[in-house]
C-alpha cells in the first residue's frame, strides 16, 4: 500500500497538480502586491515589519516553487516550501476562524465579499490547504523513499519524478 502511494506515477501527477495550483495562486498576488499586503494585515497575525516583505516575496516564491514542481526541477526543495507555506496558511486561517474573525483569504484572489461568505471561504480554504498538504507530503515521502533506494547511486534528483524521467 505504501509503495503504491509513493509510486512515481502518482508523484508526477501530484507535482503537476500542486505546482499548477501554486502558479495559479501566485498570479493574482503578483499582479497586486498592495492588495495582498492588505490581506495579510487583515489576518492580524504577522508583525508590521513582516507584512510588506511577505506580500512582495511570497507570491514569487509560490510561482517559482509551482514552476519547479511542474517542470520536475528541485522538486523536494519546492515541495518543502509548498508544505511550509500551506502549513502557515492553514494555521492562519484556523486561528482567525477560531476567534471568529472573518478574513479575506487572499489565497487565490485579493478581494472578498461579505463576512458570511468569507467564513465559508475560510473553511473551504483550510480543507483545500490540507488536501494540497497531502500532495506535498506525498512528493516529499516519495523523494525520501527514492533516495533510500538509490542510497549508493551518485544520481541527483534534478529530474526526479518528472514526466520525462
Amino acid at each position, binding site marked *: 500500500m505504501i509503495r503504491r502511494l509513493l509510486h512515481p506515477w502518482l508523484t508526477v501527477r501530484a507535482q503537476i497538480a500542486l505546482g499548477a495550483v501554486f502558479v495559479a495562486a501566485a498570479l493574482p498576488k*503578483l*499582479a*497586486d*502586491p*498592495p*492588495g495582498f*499586503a*492588505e490581506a495579510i*494585515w*487583515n489576518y*492580524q497575525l504577522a*508583525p*508590521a*515589519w513582516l*507584512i*510588506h*516583505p511577505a*506580500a*512582495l*516575496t*511570497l*507570491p*514569487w*516564491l509560490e*510561482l*517559482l*516553487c509551482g514552476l*519547479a514542481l511542474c517542470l520536475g526541477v*528541485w522538486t*523536494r*526543495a*519546492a515541495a*518543502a*516550501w509548498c508544505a511550509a507555506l500551506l502549513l502557515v496558511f492553514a494555521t492562519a486561517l484556523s486561528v482567525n476562524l477560531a476567534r471568529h474573525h472573518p478574513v479575506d483569504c487572499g489565497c487565490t484572489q485579493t478581494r472578498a465579499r461579505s*463576512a458570511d461568505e468569507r467564513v465559508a471561504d475560510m473553511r473551504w480554504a483550510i480543507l483545500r490547504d490540507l488536501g494540497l498538504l497531502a500532495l506535498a507530503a506525498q512528493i516529499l515521502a516519495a523523494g525520501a523513499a527514492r*533516495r533510500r533506494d538509490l542510497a549508493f547511486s551518485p544520481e*541527483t534528483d534534478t529530474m526526479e519524478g518528472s514526466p520525462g524521467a
Partner: protein
Amino acid sequence: MPKLFPDLMRALALLAAALVCAGLGNRLARADRKLDWTGWAPPAGLLPATPAPPPPPQAQAHPAAPEPAPLRGKGPRPPVAPAPPSPAPAAQFAPAPDAVIRDIASEAAWEAFRLRIPFLDARRSAEFQDGHVPGAWSVPVWEADAAARITEFEARANPAPLAPIAIYCSGGDCEDSRLLAKKLVDLGYRNLFIYRDGFPDWVKRGRPQERGARP
C-alpha cells in the same frame, strides 16, 4: 543529514530567487501596484479608537448652507440628495481634545462636504478612479506613494493641525480609513472624522460623485 544539505541549499536558492524577482518586479511595477518594502500599518488592535460623535446641540438654528458647486468632475453625476436639517453644521466639526479621531454618520459626512471640509479617500487608486466624493484626495494607504500623496495634500490644501479632515474608504469592515487616520495623527493632525459607512453609502444616497484621477 548530509543528504539534506543539497535540498536545503536549493530551498534557500528558491527563496533568494524569489527575493530578487520581488525586488525587480516591484521596481518595474506600475505606481498603483508598487509596495514599500517597509510598512507602517500597525496591528488592527493598536489602531486608535473612534468614539461615537456627540449629539449635535439642539438649540441653535443655523440656516442650511447652500450646496457647494461641484468642485470638478468628468463623469456622470446622480441627482443631488436633499440636505438634511442640521442645527449646528460647523460645531460638530470643532476640535475635541479627548477625541482626535471620531466616527461620523452619513448625514454628518454630507454636512462636511457642504462645509467644504477636505475629504481623503483611503481606497485603492483604481477604486478612486471609478468614482469618489467630488474634490476628494486619493491617499491609498496600501500603495507605495501614499506618503507622497499625503505630502501633496498638505502642500496644496495646507490644512491646519486642528482643521477638520474627513476620511472614508469602502465602509463595512474596511479599516483603511482608520489606518490613514492613524498616519495623520502621527503627522500631527488632531481633528479627524471617519465616514464609517464610506463611499458605498455615499453612492447609495445619490450624492454627487466624480470619476477619474485627481488633476
